């Protein structure tokens, strides 16, 4: 006990705390990203055709039924999507995180597959499957039961069809958040309940579910907002069904002669609903303390399914079949046969579409390059910005940091298509000509992905005990060093998840993209949409499958890279 440590101790490095300047820079960047396009939209919403001040656009919202109806339809659709996503994803998440169901890793991978799938691609796949006459399911149904032509089992060109097709690709939002939350709930909380005599179901209902409720609500909210602001799927499915949702209506307002003012005004109710949803979520989350990841950790509890096993398997298979397996089977089949209707046999097999996409279609290479370049850049820059913002906000380290949080969340209220207009208006004047470059797309994607990235990381931050950071501060690390050496590594899996999230979000973005690309800055999503207009389903299928394969490869690599924490540390022991 007499070891003396008597070497001279060097002084602490007198580095300046950069958090204030970083705060200012971020506030400016976010302000530019969010406020500038909104400003132009607001400006246009109060102008009439002749450039005079007028509130006619807003009064049209109330008086014109062709504007009112799409909004109500969209609201109904979004709530339907939210409910369906939540009801599917929550049990699935529990099964994957907490039960002894076989093949849980595979299920996770497949859910990720449905997440990686751009919703518009999914909608196209479901057109191939469930169009009332040519849909493969209906064709099979008729031949199976020997029914007349025009008889059908399912029709995707309906309101319910649309809700279903969207929910297929929004439920992973809920799933991912709930799985992560379930894995973080310390088992002693559940043990405590079982100890008190709680049955599995009681423990679930009274302890586990309430603990992950914020994640469920947050996920459902994301699903609702995604549905509300989604453009691709409704454009593909709602128009044939003969109704508008708010985004397709807004889009139609940009057709010649364009009415950007009216479109800007039509985005206002969306903004209000979103703000209300966010406010509600904040209230629900704010009332309880959810500091769960502290110094002590424990394994999540695994429940034995027993006789429920087969029911669970049936449920999982059904979900995966509908969201991933069938659509991709349809795409693969379509990619490899000349026309949609003919079955895949040796004689109908063709590489025509593959050949077309890779060798004849000149846009493919450029679009692929652009798409992945933008995906990487947006994911990396976006995650970094979101990380710093989430840190500044959750730790309230600079006065006014709450404002950053609002700014980062605000774009969630702006449908991509409206943002596209705002960005166009902001960045296509002669002084600042970004239109026609990839920069405007980068700005668009950063703005669009900021809310999701920020939300994910800020909820992750809330789960890290502040003392872990304070311990670093007091030992001589300033805020940014602490963020880099302690917080970010602790949140490593969340950071990677956010990166992948943003990357995939970027790749599947269509609604703002469609207004901001030019022939030099084409993206795969736009090519797919263009091809859909010309009805070239085979080429779409090839491109879609390729998009999935590459995205998947990126996600897997991101999760395996040793630098990014691929090796497993016994963190959660």
């Amino acid at each position, binding site marked *: 006990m007499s070891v003396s440590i008597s070497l001279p101790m060097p002084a602490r490095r007198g580095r300046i705390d950069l958090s204030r300047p970083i705060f200012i820079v971020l506030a400016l960047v976010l302000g530019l990203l969010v406020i500038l396009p909104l400003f132009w939209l607001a400006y246009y919403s109060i102008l009439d055709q*002749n*450039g005079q001040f007028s509130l006619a656009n807003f009064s049209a919202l109330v008086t014109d039924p*062709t504007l009112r109806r799409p909004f109500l339809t969209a609201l109904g659709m979004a709530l339907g999507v939210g409910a369906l996503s939540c009801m599917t994803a929550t049990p699935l998440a529990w099964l994957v995180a907490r039960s002894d169901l076989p093949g849980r890793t595979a299920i996770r991978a497949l859910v990720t597959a449905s997440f990686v799938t751009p919703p518009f691609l999914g909608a196209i796949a479901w057109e191939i499957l469930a*169009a*009332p*006459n*040519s*849909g493969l399911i209906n064709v099979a149904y008729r031949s199976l039961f020997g029914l007349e*032509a*025009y008889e059908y089992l399912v029709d995707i*060109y309906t309101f319910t069809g649309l809700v279903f097709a969207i929910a297929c690709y929004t439920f992973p939002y809920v799933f991912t958040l709930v799985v992560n939350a379930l894995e973080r709930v310390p088992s002693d909380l559940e043990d405590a309940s079982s100890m008190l005599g709680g049955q599995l179901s009681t423990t679930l209902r009274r302890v586990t579910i309430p603990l992950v409720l914020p994640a469920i609500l947050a996920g459902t909210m994301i699903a609702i907002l995604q549905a509300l602001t989604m453009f691709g799927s409704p*454009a593909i499915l*709602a*128009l*044939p*069904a*003969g*109704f*508008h949702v708010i985004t*397709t209506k807004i*889009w*139609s307002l*940009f*057709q*010649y*002669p*364009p009415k*950007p003012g009216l479109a800007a005004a039509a985005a206002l109710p969306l903004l209000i609903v979103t703000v209300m949803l966010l406010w509600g979520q904040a209230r629900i989350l704010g009332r309880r303390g959810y500091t769960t990841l502290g110094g002590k950790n424990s394994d999540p509890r695994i429940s034995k399914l027993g006789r429920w096993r087969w029911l669970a398997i049936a449920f999982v298979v059904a979900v995966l079949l509908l969201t991933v397996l069938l659509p991709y089977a349809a795409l693969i089949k379509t990619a490899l046969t000349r*026309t*949609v*209707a003919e079955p895949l046999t040796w004689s109908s097999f063709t590489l025509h579409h593959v050949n077309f996409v890779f060798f004849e279609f*000149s846009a493919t290479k450029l679009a692929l390059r652009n798409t992945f370049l933008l995906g990487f850049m947006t994911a990396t820059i976006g995650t970094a910005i979101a990380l710093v913002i989430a840190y500044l906000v959750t730790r309230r380290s600079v006065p006014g940091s709450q404002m950053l949080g609002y700014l980062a969340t605000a774009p969630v209220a702006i449908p991509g298509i409206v943002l596209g*207009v705002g960005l*166009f*208006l902001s960045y*296509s*004047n*002669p002084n600042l*000509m970004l*239109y*026609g470059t990839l920069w405007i797309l980068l700005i668009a994607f950063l703005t669009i992905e900021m809310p999701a990235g920020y939300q994910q990381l800020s909820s992750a931050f809330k789960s890290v005990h502040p003392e872990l950071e304070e311990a670093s501060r007091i030992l001589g690390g300033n805020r940014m060093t602490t963020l880099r050496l302690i917080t970010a590594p602790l949140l490593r899996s969340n950071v990677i998840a956010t990166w992948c999230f943003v990357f995939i979000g970027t790749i599947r973005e269509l609604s703002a993209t*469609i*207004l901001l690309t*030019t*022939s030099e800055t084409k993206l795969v999503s736009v090519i797919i949409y*263009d091809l859909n*207009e*010309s*009805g*070239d389903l085979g080429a779409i299928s090839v491109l879609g499958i390729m998009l999935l394969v590459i995205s998947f490869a990126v996600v897997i690599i991101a999760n395996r890279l040793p630098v990014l924490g691929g090796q497993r540390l016994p963190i959660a022991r």
Partner: protein
Amino acid sequence: MMNRRTVLSGALVSSIALLSAGGLAWAQAPAPYEPNQEMIEAAKKEGSVVWYTATDVQVSEKVGSAFEAKYPGIKVQVERSGSERVFQRISQEYGSNIHKADVIETSDAVHFILFKRQGWLQPAVPSDVAKSWPAQVKDPDGQFAAYRAHLSVIGYNTTQVKKEDAPKSHADLLDSKWRNRIVKAHPGYSGTIMTGTHALSEALGWDYFEKLGKQRIMQVQSSTEPPKKLAQGERSIMADGNEYNMFMLKESGVPVEVVYATEGTPIAIGHAGLLKNAPHPNAAKLFYAFLFSKDTQQLISDVGGLRSFHPEVKEKEGRTPLSKIKILYSDPAKLEPQIEDLKKKYEVNFGT
């Protein structure tokens, strides 16, 4: 490619520009011209010509190479995108004082009304146009002329509908047996269909659309889509759609058939024009004349299935010649102020 794609940017710019656009250029049509040696030499010095086009990429690339073959030493830069994109791009570039294009071509006649109003076009009349183009399809001031045209036709899937049962007229489409069987493109998203809607509403009255709206049609956006839905067998009848897509499908063996309605078939005209601020004025003039030459017009007919106003162009075997079809014209100058009203009425009857 013929659809009215999200316009917004170009149209926005131009509508802003239009507010401030002052003097309009009204000039007499200039004298017709033929390419001459002097022009060719000057064009060769310029070395290239930039063509903004909305014609299908395969067709436009072929036109480009044909020009390069005919006039070696002059490269054609084909900048192909959808009609509205072309419109958007030129509006934007001109809004920012960038002049890159020599010759412009879109499928939407209304665009040229706007270009002309902006004073962007250089009057020029190739001798082919002066000689044989009907007056409805060229500008009296010589600023543009119909480079191509296509019809918006009725069609059906021949495996699902027998020839004798197939509709012969627009009125036949209102038969209750076609409820739930019809696919139709949207005038709000397709210039071709807007033109057709205008022509049909003048010929048949709006109540034709009122009744058609009750047939529970499948609504798609672009005029290229209905033929594809027909080919898939998703719907048996198309109320409107591009004739050239039907040609392509039919000629590749897909069981579809075109119907030229007894009341008449709407035609959509795609003009081409020479830009006043063309960076390569001589090559531009040479290329502009080339577009209307018999060989080029024959090429777009054969490869693209497009209709030509050149009297010497021979239609492919099996295609009904334009002269045998009753055609419904729509005057873009009359259409332009009505677009908004038509869209509104359409939405009331069709839901979108």
